[in-house]
């Protein structure tokens, strides 16, 4: 359930909800970190749930000593009122058999809060790509029927590639075709449920493998940026500077320092 930080619940009607799926390489979650950090979004509440493994830590977006002591939990909601953007960040994995329950609770909140649309950032196993997918850009999108009317033209203008259908049963030659997102976590469930509930949802995903997924996250936010224009590209900046601010919690992603005795 959504629990606001302030005494009263904020008005989220008409806002766009950005959220990650816990998926391969945690690409969606890393992308959300970049968005929240770069836009300096402020925390407006928690989506308190027993469906994800508990974790706590100090402010992952701390920029100075003063704001580093704020406690963060595994599911938090941030907002940028000027852009009518709300971001949900998930920081741990689902407890077994609880992911479907989470999807139901989340979509119920989406409906009751009056969000205009939901954008899910996700990823899929890159080793599952077919030959055509291997030769094209590793980004795909999916739209629910209610979203297609408003956004399909924009996607065509951007030259974006819709996620292809693949055989439901890969081993069978004449199997039916359906949307499959291997490694996508709750992406498919969210998409299917949104289709049946008439929720306007777009899924943006990148084909990725486990490893250093920061470049994948940057790729995904740039893909999203082509559509939403979250950050305007600066004409006078050098090509090497990125407009995305890495959060302070991205330090030591691959472990502590090395013991000098090793060498």
């Amino acid at each position: 359930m959504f629990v606001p930080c302030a005494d009263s619940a904020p008005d989220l009607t008409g806002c766009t909800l950005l959220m990650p799926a816990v998926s391969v390489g945690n690409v969606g979650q890393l992308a959300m970190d970049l968005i929240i950090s770069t836009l300096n979004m402020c925390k407006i509440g928690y989506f308190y749930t027993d469906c994800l493994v508990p974790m706590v830590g100090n402010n992952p977006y701390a920029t100075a000593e003063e704001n580093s002591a704020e406690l963060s939990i595994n599911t938090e909601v941030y907002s940028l009122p000027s852009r009518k953007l709300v971001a949900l960040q998930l920081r741990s994995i689902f407890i077994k058999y609880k992911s479907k329950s989470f999807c139901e609770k989340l979509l119920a909140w989406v409906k009751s809060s009056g969000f205009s649309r939901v954008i899910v950032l996700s990823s899929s196993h890159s080793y599952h790509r077919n030959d055509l997918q291997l030769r094209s850009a590793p980004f795909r999108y999916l739209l629910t029927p209610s979203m297609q009317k408003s956004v399909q033209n924009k996607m065509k203008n951007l030259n974006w590639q819709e996620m292809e259908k693949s055989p439901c049963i890969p081993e069978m030659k004449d199997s039916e075709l359906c949307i499959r997102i291997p490694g996508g976590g709750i992406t498919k469930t969210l998409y299917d449920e949104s289709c049946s509930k008439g929720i306007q949802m777009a899924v943006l995903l990148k084909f990725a493998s486990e490893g250093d997924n920061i470049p994948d996250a940057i790729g995904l936010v740039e893909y999203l940026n082509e559509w939403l224009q979250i950050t305007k590209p600066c004409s006078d900046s050098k090509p090497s500077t990125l407009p995305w601010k890495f959060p302070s919690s991205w330090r030591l992603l691959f472990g502590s320092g090395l013991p000098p005795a090793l060498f």
Partner: protein
Amino acid sequence: MAATFFGEVVKAPCRAGTEEEEEEDDEGRRETPEDREVRRQLAKKREVRLLQGQTKTSLEVPLLEKYPCSKFIIAIGSNAVAFLSSFVMNSGVWEEVGCTKLWNEWCRTTDTVHLSPTEAFCVFYRLKSNPSVFGSCPRKNMQITILTCRHITEYKTPEAPSSLPSPFLKALKTQTYKDAVCCSLLEQPNIAHDLPAAVLSYCQVWKIPAVLYLCYTDVMQLDLVTVEAFKPALSSRSLAGLAKNIPQSTEMLKRLMTTSEIQSNIYT
């Protein structure tokens, strides 16, 4: 997929934990009513049950509703429990007011009502001299302190872990906890998880003042040096005044250590 050195292809572990999701989808399609019933029975068996202190009958109301208090201290793990037993519970008289009974597939105990002290997973005690009974809003007036240990290899730092002065104490506190903490705060990117994180998350969301003292140590079994690393917490407001006799406490701690040492040596 990944190929190992010997050429066989194995499924690469996915840290986003998504393998289960696909299995779950398949299971959902093939699940029979019998499977669902078995899963439901297992979930019921895994439920945590609260029992009354003396009678060991089920507690129908939440424990803190029956025994509202202003200070709730939770120790998780052998070193934290030893610290609390020797320094805090050794001063004053504490009565057992309840315990929890739980079972899951990891437990080695049989499912019995009568728990021996070695089997009880969680026992609740109340200080007889100061029950701190408050009225109808125990939540608002309550302060929670959690003590636990973590292995030092889980602590991320730019320096080498071997250079760290183990054991050391770090703290995490909720927004409404306004008192001073007795050690430095846990820096990013370090996190806490499991039960301490679950308690702290609850407190943060529902605006209950709570503090977690996390002791990073290289000895996870009962160890004198690790237990003594919790001592600075005695100066915090939550534990102040509860530890009255430090020399006696240190003696009790040494006795606890000796008992466990003898038990753990299988060669004498």
